């Protein structure tokens, strides 16, 4: 807390973690809406009801994503002015691209998707669903490309005489290999989140014995898409992402694994508590050689430990980074198992009737949110102490003209505002779920944004 960047970092991480709770469902649910509306177009009226129900929830979720997204763009300037001044010549491109190409597209069609079914007719309504889904996925790409430059600033820039970065290769920036890997990993994870949410609502209805047709649709689509996405999150996308970290951010990999000693046949730690002072893992349960295999494809390659690096280049919060990575990887593995089991039950025709499984599916929906948050914490804590990896330190990036007092003031403001927002969101969503998917249109005038 004596670190002058502390409140700026805490505010940015708090507001972005909170914000990302909404877009991950927006992006994932967009895919489900396209699937549902497609099936409805093929003549199954039950899927029209499903589309209507989920597009209504989508609208609420979208609005909360929009309003919590506003502060993110502004904070680059307000709280990270020195970083914006240094890297704006490069990341300004991707951030502005998002606004011009993605936000306009989304906002132009979301109203039509949520409220325009009658006016548009089925085909145009399907087109609106595709447009909104595409807009949200495009938006994700530009943000990931921005982050990928910060993680892995490849040859898209040069440093000017004033020490600031400028762009030299537009397509190099957009097609950064790190961005492609990160995007595939992140987007499939957002589909996992939406799968859990759709499945959970289906499980709730099945347990209550109401809306049986919709419960069936939600459960079957949810666990089917969920299994496919959960597998892709782990392999090949997560695996590939880990190999990139091993290759380009070796100190981060060492910290993610709580590994201090270097050497070949590196073990993968499943459980254990890192003790940074003593430079060891307490109560560790290892899988021998697995880390070398996962990172480099062969047990004989040496995996560097933190002892190999200067302490000033260590990630600043090794313990939190270690736990984030393990929570993410652990949950990701469990998701595959749970969805595999659910699909087995479906194959046996027991998905809608096996109550213990339905209970688990209903209560599991918070965990993908925890996993994605932990995943982003792994990426961002792992990047430390750099803001742009290897080029620019976080300690040099915050707005030094903004006092800690001001930063703390706005952080407290966000805590209060976002607490109220959270209550309202839960209230609105539960109300819709309680109302249920029915033929009737939902009440209220068309004032959604």
């Amino acid at each position, binding site marked *: 807390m004596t670190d002058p960047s502390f409140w700026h970092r805490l505010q940015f991480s708090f507001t972005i973690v909170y914000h990302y709770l909404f877009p991950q469902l927006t992006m994932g649910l967009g895919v489900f809406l396209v699937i549902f509306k497609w099936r409805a177009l093929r003549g199954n009226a039950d899927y029209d009801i499903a589309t209507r129900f989920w597009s209504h929830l989508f609208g609420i979720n979208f609005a909360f994503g929009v309003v919590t997204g506003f502060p993110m763009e502004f904070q680059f300037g307000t709280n990270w002015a020195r970083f914006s001044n240094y890297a704006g*010549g490069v990341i300004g491109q991707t951030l502005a691209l998002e606004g011009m190409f993605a936000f306009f597209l989304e906002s132009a069609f979301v109203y039509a998707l949520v409220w325009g079914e009658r006016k548009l007719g089925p085909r145009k309504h399907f087109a609106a669903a595709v447009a909104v889904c595409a807009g949200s996925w495009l938006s994700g790409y530009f943000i990931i490309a921005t982050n990928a430059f910060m993680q892995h600033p490849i040859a898209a820039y040069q440093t000017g005489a004033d020490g600031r970065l400028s762009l030299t290769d537009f397509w190099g920036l957009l097609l950064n290999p790190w961005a492609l890997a990160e995007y595939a990993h992140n987007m499939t994870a957002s589909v996992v989140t939406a799968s859990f949410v759709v499945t959970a609502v289906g499980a709730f209805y099945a347990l209550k014995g109401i809306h049986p047709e919709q419960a069936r649709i939600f459960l079957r689509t949810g666990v089917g898409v969920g299994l496919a996405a959960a597998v892709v999150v782990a392999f090949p996308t997560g695996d590939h992402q880990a190999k990139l970290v091993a290759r380009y951010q070796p100190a981060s990999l060492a910290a993610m694994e709580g590994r201090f000693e270097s050497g070949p046949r590196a073990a993968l730690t499943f459980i254990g508590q890192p003790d940074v002072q003593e430079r060891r893992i307490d109560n560790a349960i290892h899988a021998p050689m697995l880390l070398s295999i996962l990172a480099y494809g062969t047990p004989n390659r040496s995996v560097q430990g933190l002892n190999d690096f200067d302490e000033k280049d260590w990630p600043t919060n090794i313990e939190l980074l270690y736990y984030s990575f393990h929570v993410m990887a652990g949950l990701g593995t469990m998701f595959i198992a749970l969805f595999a089991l659910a699909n087995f039950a479906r194959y046996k025709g027991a998905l809608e009737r096996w109550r213990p499984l339905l209970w688990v599916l209903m209560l599991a929906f918070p965990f993908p949110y925890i996993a994605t948050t932990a995943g982003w914490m792994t990426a961002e804590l792992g990047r430390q102490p750099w803001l742009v990896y290897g080029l620019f330190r976080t300690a040099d990036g915050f707005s030094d003209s903004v006092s800690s007092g001001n930063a703390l003031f706005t952080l407290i403001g966000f805590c209060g505002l976002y607490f109220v927002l959270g209550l309202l969101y839960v209230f609105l969503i539960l109300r819709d779920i309680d109302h249920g998917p029915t033929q009737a249109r939902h009440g209220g005038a068309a004032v959604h944004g």
Partner: protein
Amino acid sequence: MAEVWFSILALTLVLYAALDGFDFGAGLVHLWVARTDDERRAVLAAIGPFWDGNEVWLLATGGVLFVAFPSVLAVAFPAFYLALFLVLWCLVLRGISIEVRNHLEDSLWAAFFDAVFAGSSSLLALLFGLALGNVVRGVPIDANRSFTLALFTDFLPTGQVGLIDFYTLSVGLLSSVFLAAYGATFLAARTGGSLRVRCLAAERNSAFVAAALFVIVTIETHFVRPSLLANLLQRVPGWLGIAVLVAGASLWLSGFRAGRDRRAFIGSSLVAIGILGAAAAGLYPTIIHSTLAPEFDLNAPASLVPPYGAAVGLVWWLIALVPALLYVAMGFRRNWERVGRDPATR
């Protein structure tokens, strides 16, 4: 190139003001013109298809600043720290109150969110006016190319100025009253019955006050930032802005007199576009003016990113502008009917 990017910055900002301006204005007059639950729903239904897309123009403006003039963003944003967060929180509250109000049937909470919507819209109209006042008046940029800005100092527009002084406050008042008139004009064009009648009354009264305030602010501007008016009168875009303003004002007046609500609305948007466009023409090449010494001004040519980034950005930005403008046109084409008659909103 700097001229082009300055024009683009001005264009996005003017479009933002002209578009989000009418839904802020609807919020300003919301409690005043809409009395019953049905009428208040009608106000929200009138701006429903627009407000979210309109706000994207603010992000687009921020994007232009980021892509072309990141150093200006890095100087100005931390200096306006508290004011910007106030803007952000108002935008959050406003968006949420529209969304939540729409889903509530309970009259108690509907009244609460009506008040939040009206309050946050009003504060935003005032804050954006203050911001515009600060851009015209200038801020205390010093030799280090940085500045800090107190919320207020001695309320005088010279030297070590604050966010609020008598000049910026009068611009804030003008923007609030103008947006009230503008919002009422929009609502009059999209609603009917007694709601429309009250909108027309609000339109007339606030447009009258806004015109008087506009004269006062113009005279003040002559003393606070003499170069602005002098530059404006020597430049083609400046005269173009004045022409748009005059044409808009006469359309507005004739539309109002003839009961042609849409014509009046188009006229009122042209007034907003004309005033802000002319002001931008007068400000060039300065993006942010220093009240301490003219050599500390942040000028467009010196602040522009190196040529490659500026050129690449221009190419994709112009490509992206086409669909963005199409969406605006599509929004108005689809939602020109009065809300009561629109089957989708019943």
